[in-house]
């Protein structure tokens, strides 16, 4: 961005916006305004209008009655949620699995991208990249099938390999040990998404100025030093922005994986908010409870995004909002 005339050029990356009257600015940008209208309308209709449905959370909603006949119950459903042991337990699982997925997801994707970037053989590099992002296009139902059969005690490949290597004597029942569940979900996520998530970092790496590498080389940096002092800082801003965006999804630890891999034995570790809502809301026709849980998730997510954004601002990093 060029500095506006009249402003004193500063040694900062920030641009200085001169204040012009609002109306004048609107007139000046009328084509832009016009172009954004359909999008605004879309968001109003599909994102804001349905918020009206939130009133269900404060009623004992019954689909058979009209709006005026519904019974209002205030914060009853929120109280039930926040005092119910089972809900606090699913909240723990949701946050834990989410954090595990996020940390593992970021770390593996960044490492993978940097390592892949070091490969100089074009064809080899492309092949690896293609193979790594293909699992992203499989649906979870397929992936959980693969995971379940690999972990089976009945000739599952994981147990077979571990037994052949004499690491274990007896096949392990991976899916019936509650403590393993989070790890299995995390590992499945990494296997499925690492290649896909690495794409954006690879793109960011290619935009780093090559002269920086040359300068580092002249200063005597070896391969690892270059990764550490040139590549990593070069993609720092994109990492931060993605982190902030992902904060909003922290209560979305997923539904399919846990629903498909979970079972009665590991339920204390596998049940997420979405599954809880399905079981105690949708399945027994308690729509109000399901809505209350949804509102809870939304409020927490918005709070987290703003918190992350503020922290980034304090650290003087690029921000989302």
């Amino acid at each position, binding site marked *: 961005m060029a500095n506006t005339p009249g402003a004193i050029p500063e040694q900062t990356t920030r641009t200085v916006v001169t204040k012009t009257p609002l109306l004048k600015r609107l007139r000046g940008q009328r084509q832009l305004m016009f172009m954004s209208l359909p999008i605004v309308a879309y968001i109003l209709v599909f994102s804001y209008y349905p918020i009206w449905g939130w009133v269900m959370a404060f009623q004992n909603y019954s*689909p*058979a009655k009209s709006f005026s006949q519904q019974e209002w119950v205030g914060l009853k459903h929120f109280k039930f949620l926040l005092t119910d042991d089972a809900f606090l337990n699913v909240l723990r699982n949701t946050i834990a699995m989410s954090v595990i997925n996020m940390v593992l997801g970021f770390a593996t994707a960044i490492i993978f991208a940097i390592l892949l970037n070091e490969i100089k053989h074009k064809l080899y590099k492309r092949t690896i990249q293609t193979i790594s992002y293909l699992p992203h296009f499989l649906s979870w139902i397929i992936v959980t099938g693969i995971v379940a059969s690999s972990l089976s005690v009945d000739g599952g490949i994981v147990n077979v390999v571990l037994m052949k290597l004499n690491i274990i004597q007896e096949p392990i029942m991976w899916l019936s040990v509650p403590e393993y569940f989070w790890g299995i979900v995390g590992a499945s996520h990494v296997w499925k998404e690492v290649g896909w998530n690495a794409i954006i970092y690879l793109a960011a790496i290619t935009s780093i100025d090559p002269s920086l590498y040359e300068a580092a080389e002249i200063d005597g940096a070896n391969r690892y030093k270059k990764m550490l002092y040139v590549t990593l800082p070069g993609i720092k801003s994109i990492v931060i922005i993605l982190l902030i965006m992902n904060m909003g999804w922290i209560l979305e630890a997923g539904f399919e994986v846990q629903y498909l891999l979970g*079972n009665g034995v590991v*339920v204390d570790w596998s049940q997420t908010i979405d599954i809880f809502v399905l*079981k105690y809301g949708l399945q027994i026709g308690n729509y109000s409870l399901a809505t209350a849980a949804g509102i809870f998730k939304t409020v927490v997510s918005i709070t987290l995004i703003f918190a992350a954004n503020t922290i980034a601002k304090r650290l003087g990093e690029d921000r989302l909002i």
Partner: protein
Amino acid sequence: MALAGCSGDNEKATTPDGKEVLNITAFIGTPNQAPAKDNRIYKKIQEELGVNLEMEFLVGDLQQKLGVMIAGGDFPDLITADTKLVSAGAVIPLEDLIEEHAPNLKKHFAKDWNRMKDSSDGHIYWLPNYGVYTGEFISNYYSGPAFWIQKSILKDAGYPTPKTLDDFTKLVRDYAAKNPTIDGQPTIGFTTLASDWRTFPLLNPPEHLTGHPNDGGVVVDENGVASVFADKDISKRYYKELNNLYNEGLLDKEAFVQNYDQYLAKISSGRVLSMFDQHWNFQAGEDPLVAQGKIGQTYVGFPLVYDTSITDHYLDRPVINLNNGFGISKDAEDPVALIKFLDKLMSEEYQKLLSWGEEGVDYQVNEEGRFYRTPEQRKEQDDPAWRLINKAEGFYAAAPKLEGTFEDGNAIGAINQPEEFYDNLKPEDKELLDAYGFKTWSDFFSPAPENPVYYPAWQVDLKEGSDAAVANKQMTDTSLKFLPKAIMSKPNEFDNIWNEYVDAYKKIDVKSYEDRINEQLKWRIENWSAK
């Protein structure tokens, strides 16, 4: 824009005699395979009755599917029965429609008319699909609950009759010791299932082992009072036995983590020696074994009890399958046409088509007018792929149907025709039944006593979102959490985990669940007795 190739959406299909074809959408709450596009029976129905059935079968979890349907407020014309739909006002009362337009249905349900009325408002919302008999009640095929054991085990042991759980497990132990693998895969001595709503294979055995009939999650004493048994000693005894089997390596290690499809696949591999289940629930896993001619690896059911002083009550008299079958949704444009269609299908002509098939194609009639099948026709009936093209099984199972005998004395359905049943038996099956001196698979069970008026308790509607419904969910969750843990524990840890389970159970409002059941049983006794 490429248009999707949907044929016949804009042009109205017509029957051969030029009538417009009525499209009926139906949601069927069981996971059937969709019939072939040009299925012979559905085609015949379309040509003769002018109705095209557009069926959607269940994929995944029924309660979730219905919950989403209700939330979206969009329903097909005919919808699978579920009490949830009544609470949501999604279905219309049927009593007047039946009175006015459906003489066959009226006649069929006449003696159960009062039972079909909803206990909260007195309307009839559902047309139950099973349990109303005309003429003689025959059950050659046993579809209910039992402890199932492979036929080859019985043959190997000289056709014994296991009466108690101990007799049964001994048979399994001995056979598994002799046959560590079957068809090259490790033998599984006993398996069970607790996935989605199909938790009864794990949770119901204690009530049967103590001589109670199938009342679902409760046992009802002689005074008609229901109580929960999942955390009582009668249950502990059974799960302790499973714990022993587990520690001997006879219990399927993955019994509690498998889903329904994996369970069926396991059974169809022929290496599961035994399980507790209801026959209709694992029939789909047995079919491939029959198709492959592995009759020795299909099952016989035994009504086991804890000790011989107890009389088994597995086999029960037919009871109308309340809260099952079809209802008509509020979105149906022409309920009268729908009920007329269902009524036509209730005539003997169409019931013969749906149960036996087409005369001369699927069955023959001899000089005495008895229906029978040729060996080729029987072979076709064993083939699941053939049935998708030539039978209307998905719809027939969900629709109201005649059961028992037709007016001409033929049984409804080939399996219930005594001579046909016997001729259709595989040589191995004949040998087995002859060895026991039995004629049918039901003969292994004690004759069914008269049903109590309120029977069965599992049909009670808990009411959506009520405390009873929440308690029931929590009870199931708790059982599914602790029972596998207890069963898969070391023998000396079992008691501790069992006590934990009982304590966890105490935290649940079980009373609200029991109260709802008992209140409904009382209501039934008051309203159904005076008939």
